[in-house]
């Protein structure tokens, strides 16, 4: 089981109740804006604590309310690609990519920087500052940064937002390649049902 998630969370007037049992491939979480999809990713990443439930990824327990397990974000090995990319503005692209190197090395992660930059087509951007990147470029760098941090699974929050229409297909193809070549479990959030059907190995509506 790639993702075994069961959780509840009360956020203001929104109540999140979710059950995910998904095998390998891409698990797509689809639903309209404002139902707490990003909050689910934050809970899996360890940035937000659920009220109850458990979170297991590839057999490892990241959170279990009853057992009192709650790993801090840095120990969850999540490759989180945020909706707004969140590249560090004071670091060049290459330094952003290397930020998670320490954990990757400790976990003997298989990806090399050259390999990932070639896969993502960002070799030419390495010396640039994040603010000079287009939306699509920033997204690809963010994906690279997540992969190079020793990630054991990917969390993708609306990866096509802030990306030009023309570039969307490129990012989609890239995600399919990641699915096929790197075999990382992915939890993918979108509000677009077409995108969801196109990519999903497992589809979860919320």
């Amino acid at each position: 089981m790639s993702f075994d998630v069961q959780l509840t969370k009360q956020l203001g007037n929104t109540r999140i109740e979710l059950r995910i049992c998904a095998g390998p491939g891409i698990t797509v979480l689809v639903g309209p804006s404002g139902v707490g999809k990003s909050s689910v990713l934050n809970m899996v990443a360890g940035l937000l604590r659920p009220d109850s439930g458990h979170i297991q990824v590839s057999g490892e327990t990241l959170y279990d309310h009853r057992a009192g397990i709650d790993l801090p974000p840095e120990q969850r090995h999540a490759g989180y690609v945020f909706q707004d990319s969140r590249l560090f503005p004071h670091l060049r692209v290459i330094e952003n990519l290397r930020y998670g190197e320490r954990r990757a090395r400790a976990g003997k992660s298989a990806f090399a920087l050259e390999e990932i930059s070639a896969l993502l087509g960002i070799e030419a951007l390495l010396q640039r500052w994040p603010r000079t990147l287009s939306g699509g470029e920033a997204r690809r760098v963010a994906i690279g940064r997540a992969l190079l941090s020793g990630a054991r699974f990917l969390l993708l929050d609306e990866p096509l937002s802030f990306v030009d229409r023309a570039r969307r297909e490129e990012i989609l193809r890239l995600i399919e390649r990641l699915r096929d070549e790197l075999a990382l479990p992915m939890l993918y959030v979108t509000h677009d049902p077409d995108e969801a059907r196109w990519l999903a190995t497992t589809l979860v509506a919320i």
Partner: protein
Amino acid sequence: MGKHPPGGVTRTRASYIQRDTVSGVRTGGVLSAEEWEIIGLSLRVGAVSTVAALPVAFALAFTLARRDFPGRALLDALVHLPLVLPPVVTGWALLLLFGRRGPIGHALEACCGMVFAFRWTGAALAAAVMALPLMVRAMRLSIEAVDTRLENAARTLGASPWRAFLTVTLPLSMPGILAAVALGFARSLGEFGATVSFVSSIPGETRTLPLAIYGAMQLPAGETQVLRLALVSIALALGMLLLSELLLRRQPGRQHEL
């Protein structure tokens, strides 16, 4: 800090009194040796007070910017108190606490031989307390401007809270911190009221620029000295303000345009 040989203060005083009679006699250059000494002392007091206030100001700024706790409003008010209190009251409070018979002053002298009363270290302490609110304000703004979501991103990439702080929060708030240092230094150079009430105006020991200017104003023949020292003050203050403004405008990641 400030451990003087016995009699150090009195010797300084005596040598000044000698010199005082010939004050205004210039030994070459635009400023007299005595004026250079005043400027040197002011810079030393300013530098020491700023360096000492820096970690305290940062801790306070960080706490006020990021933490929510009961009594936060009170802490905020206490930090700002020296800004609005009559400086003479701040100086008097320092004298009560850090004087040789004050609870803190007595303890510090007993344990580490540190004396503040009527020493240049006391002038630095008074300047630090008076500069603190300004430094906290400048730093707090820059810490509040750091997006905590970037720190979250760092955590998901494997950084401990401490490493996220060192590699993301600190560099991103650095322009504000440096601006606060420049501002605090300028404020320290101008400190008058609390200093004169706490450590008096001892030539060569606690008589910094503003105190010397005030002293010269009381003398019939002091006009040109007032002018010279005032010009030095203006130049230093203006330079620091410009520097602080320049630092605040510099955003990390924007220093190298492509």
